[in-house]
């Protein structure tokens, strides 16, 4: 007699664990399957964890979770070769409870989070790959794993298998993603003494800073770089769409080294010791790339469902929230004893009614626009830098004259009409 659960969750990342935890709290019988040696062994993120969605799963988690620093300052850099235009926000309201977001190291955080699901009653099995969903009469009824006699059954299978969701592809819920629907990102964890981090980033012990870097950080390609402060290390990384990387024939690790050696970045990481190097894909196709998310006996959550807001670097929070919504749907389905697609579609409705799909809808044209019109990163970032340099360099030119010269140099380079077109197009893509 094969084993049967109420729910099988594939993948113990933020989405899968959130789903398993919520199901277990509702007394469902949950199996959480993880392919890594431990939850987190295969998981990568730049490092920002948002408080709001996590708090709904584990109230006051910051009192016990392995977090790095609460982020109290978010900086944005428009970087050229030897200069940078900066803006940002720093606020001490983010330095106290309930906080806004935290930097985290995922290998530690994910283990802690998965243990929460286990404590709530979920069964976690590591080192197990789900090779396919078992489909009977058009309904997913379980999973086949790479363990001997590794077939397990459930009323609902939740696919939280990440950006490389081979399982949802096998089910025909989406085709292979295109290279412009994913961003290849590489990063390093660089150890640096706490005092140096505090001094260089102008923060105290339990305060963190994030910097998002546009422009020369990707050599003008569609993407961003980031530099985040942990307790005693920095996460530095850079990514572009895979299509941009292919087109520009970039080696991602060379781009990372270029960033590390950039004169605006180098002093911040100087003397640091590399501790880990990581590569990962981020699903950045947005609204239009979200696949079918519910079928007969199956639900798809997190990265596997392309739930990432690349513009605001939100992903793990969306993963967690989608996991929670899926769990709530499963609990309802259980009370009805109906696990058909129409029953599980209440997850789809909840997802589309939530901030997740509303935000993805808002930016549905952004990635496409910026990929198609590379001038935003290529031309306008250097232009902004030149304008600022000109405006703030005191050389006896009257300020009004300077303004004129700046406007002239912008329109001379592109033509007034094109500048206006570009501005309108960018505004439309993010409005």
């Amino acid at each position, binding site marked *: 007699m094969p084993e049967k659960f109420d729910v099988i969750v594939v993948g113990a990342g933020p989405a899968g664990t959130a789903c398993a935890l919520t199901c277990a709290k509702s007394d469902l019988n949950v199996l959480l399957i993880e392919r890594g040696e431990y939850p987190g062994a295969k998981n990568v993120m730049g490092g920002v964890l948002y408080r709001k969605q996590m708090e709904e799963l584990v109230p006051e988690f910051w009192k016990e979770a392995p977090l790095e620093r609460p982020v109290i300052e978010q900086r944005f850099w428009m970087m050229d070769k030897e200069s940078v235009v900066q803006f940002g926000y720093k606020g001490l309201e983010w330095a106290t409870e309930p906080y806004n977001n935290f930097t985290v190291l995922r290998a530690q955080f994910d283990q802690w989070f998965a243990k929460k699901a286990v404590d709530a009653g979920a069964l976690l099995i590591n080192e197990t790959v789900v090779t396919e969903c078992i489909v009977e009469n058009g309904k997913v009824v379980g999973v086949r794993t790479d363990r001997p006699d590794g077939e397990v059954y459930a009323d609902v299978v939740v696919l939280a298998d990440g950006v490389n969701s081979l399982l949802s592809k096998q089910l025909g819920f989406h085709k292979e993603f295109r290279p412009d629907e994913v961003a290849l990102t590489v990063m390093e964890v660089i150890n640096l003494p706490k005092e140096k981090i505090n001094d260089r980033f102008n923060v105290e012990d339990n305060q963190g800073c994030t910097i998002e870097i546009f422009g020369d950080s990707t050599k003008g390609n569609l993407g961003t770089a980031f530099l985040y402060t942990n307790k005693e290390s920095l996460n530095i990384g850079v990514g572009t769409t895979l299509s941009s990387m292919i087109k520009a024939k970039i080696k991602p690790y060379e781009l990372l080294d270029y960033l590390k050696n950039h004169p605006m970045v180098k002093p911040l990481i100087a003397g640091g010791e590399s501790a880990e190097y990581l590569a990962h*894909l981020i699903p950045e196709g947005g609204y239009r790339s979200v696949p079918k998310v519910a079928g007969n006996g199956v639900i798809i959550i997190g990265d596997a469902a392309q739930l990432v807001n690349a513009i605001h670097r939100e992903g793990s929070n969306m993963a967690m929230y989608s996991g929670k919504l899926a769990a709530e749907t499963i609990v309802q389905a259980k009370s009805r004893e109906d696990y058909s697609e129409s029953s599980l579609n209440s997850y789809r409705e909840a997802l589309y009614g939530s901030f997740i799909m509303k935000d993805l809808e808002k930016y549905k044209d952004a990635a496409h626009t910026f990929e198609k019109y590379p001038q935003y990163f290529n031309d306008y970032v250097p232009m902004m830098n030149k304008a600022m340099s000109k405006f703030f360099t005191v050389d006896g030119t009257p300020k009004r004259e300077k303004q004129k010269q700046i406007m002239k140099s912008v329109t001379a380079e592109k033509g007034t009409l094109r500048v206006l077109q570009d501005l309108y197009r960018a505004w439309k893509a993010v409005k």
Partner: protein
Amino acid sequence: MSTKNIEEKQYLLRFKCDTKSHLTVLDHDVCMTQCPDKICTVFCPAEVYKWEGTRMQVGYEGCHECGSCRIGCPYQNIKWEYPKGGHGIVFRLA
């Protein structure tokens, strides 16, 4: 020290290697005759793919399991599976 090249970066990592590759180049002739750029040798973040004149060498042992090669191969010529449970890369930090 901060790493300066891919060899130093890969050296930071722990891998629990399987004896069997989870990555398979389906047809080496496609790489040879149709793919002058051999773009996987460029964008792979772990330098897994190396062109050896007549065939593609696949150093699956150093793979980060990111999936870029499966999506980025212009000829869908790479069969991509997950390594056996518990095998492959083991991230310890981020």
